[in-house]
């Protein structure tokens, strides 16, 4: 590229069209940078400020919940289980909670291929969630509804699966 272009520029310089060429090259640089930016930023349309932490406080602050997938990193296309820990904001385990959940891909208009459920209580506020399965990489949300002691609250976990 250089060997072809440089003499052309030199010729242009001789003709006195210097600033036109400089402007042209400048424009090329701008275009190249724009293309690169698009390449880097064009793929995702996920909110930038998502919280991917695995311990989160429920919407109304009633519970604190933590997820622990049995397989790390979370696999694609593989049935696996999670442990969900539920406690009060000051760290007291929640016993005998009624828990339901579902997962969704907000960018794709579909959820999980399975209907995971809480299958056992392990003690210490820990619950086994069986039937977890994700069929695509990308941004997932898993929403839990937690009921205990006459109170209901929701907690959402964001996942970025690869």
């Amino acid at each position, binding site marked *: 590229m250089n060997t072809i272009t440089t003499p052309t520029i030199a010729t242009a310089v001789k003709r006195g069209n210097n600033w036109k060429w400089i402007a042209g090259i400048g424009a090329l640089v701008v275009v190249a940078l724009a293309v690169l930016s698009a390449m880097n930023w064009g793929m995702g349309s996920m909110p930038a400020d998502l919280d991917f932490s695995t311990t989160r406080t429920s919407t109304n602050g009633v519970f604190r919940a933590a997820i622990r997938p049995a397989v790390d990193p979370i696999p694609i296309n593989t049935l696996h289980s999670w442990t969900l820990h539920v406690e009060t904001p000051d760290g007291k385990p929640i016993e005998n909670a009624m828990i339901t959940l579902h997962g969704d891909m907000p960018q794709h208009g579909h959820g999980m*291929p399975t209907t995971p459920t809480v299958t056992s209580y392990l003690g210490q506020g820990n619950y086994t969630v069986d039937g977890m399965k994700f069929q695509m990489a990308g941004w997932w949300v898993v929403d839990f509804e937690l009921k205990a002691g006459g109170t209901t609250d929701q907690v959402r976990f964001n996942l970025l699966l690869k």
Partner: protein
Amino acid sequence: MKSRFMLIGFALLVLSMIGSIAFSAWPRSPWTQADVAVLRGLWIGSMPPLPPDPSNRYADNAQAAAFGQRLFFDTRLSANGTIACATCHAPQQGFQDGKPLSQGIGTTNRRAMTIVGTAYSPWLFWDGRKDSQWAQALGPLESAVEHGGNRTRYAHLIAGSDRAAYEALFGPLPDTTLLPPSAGPVADPTARAAWDGMRAADRDAITRFYANMGKAIAAYERTIMPGPSRFDTYVQAVLNNDTVAMQTLLTPDEVMGMRLFIGKAHCVNCHNGPLFTNNDFHNTGVPSVPRLPEDTGRAHGAPQVRGDEFNCLSRYSDAQPAQCGELQFMKPEGEQLIRAFKTPSLRNVAERGPFMHAGQFTTLNDVLAHYNRAPAAPAGASELKPLNLSKTEIAQVIAFLKTLSGPLATAPTWLTPPK
């Protein structure tokens, strides 16, 4: 003169900037670490070990596979003596038939899927109405438009000519002497009535025999696996960072198609993993075929597999209930299932048009044009969004898809009728 040198110097500086930008965008390996992770996931070397099939205790029995191979190619297992499993799943055609709708005794409403690599799939058929290879094999054998046979007909046949082979594997055949020549829970009213007239214990014994036929066929089908394609050789070069090999193994168009496949065209969303399928069900707005009955796909298949007499939780399955997680936790209903069809593997896709569940598209170009346009679904909601691919980009994706062709990894002796 001095200002000219300065100008040339400035021009060279700018050019080197462009050069370095270009170099950073297309370094010697054109793939980022994230790309390499995606490509590694699609690479055949990432195939996990063959998953066990706890519902079939004969799944890994070589003798059962040999018996299954005989059954797979046996045209006597049909109403008119001309149809075998291999009729619509022809080994020379990648275990499919190249037809929009399959031709058995009659014409089916769907296109034959390949059986290559199906040992990895928790669901069989376009609607996943079966949850194992052995349960799948039993469907066509007693479908009126496929093999057109029935359970006692097959039992009489095996008792007459293959008793020793069967009994060596499965133990004594049920006594068939007093059973009707043609009876089974099938569409044909005469055979159906004969079946209903049999003693429950006989129906159960014959059904267990029938399930064993399926288990032998499945033991054979488990051996049918895809082999490496040009794509896999290329990914191997990527993983070795062998940039010289990378440049010779695929053309720039094929590489660009690969980039589109894992990027802008979003193909990899569903066509992921080393078999290029997530084995799940998706509504991609594929048009319906006017002369065929309404087809709701997984919305119909999900309740069918739950109630299937041969599913993982059935009395004919060898699995413990805890080993049937896929069935127990499957999504049984919902908008997402309407006209959702199984994601097919893309290995050897260029060798096996027409495409989609009823062969709606003749060429890969038709398929790509559909995904590019993303039309509304005839029912349910399509998951597609328009891709804005140019004609050149479509051609590049197709060029890439052709790199997924390769020979089977199965020994040739399995690909022809046994002696």
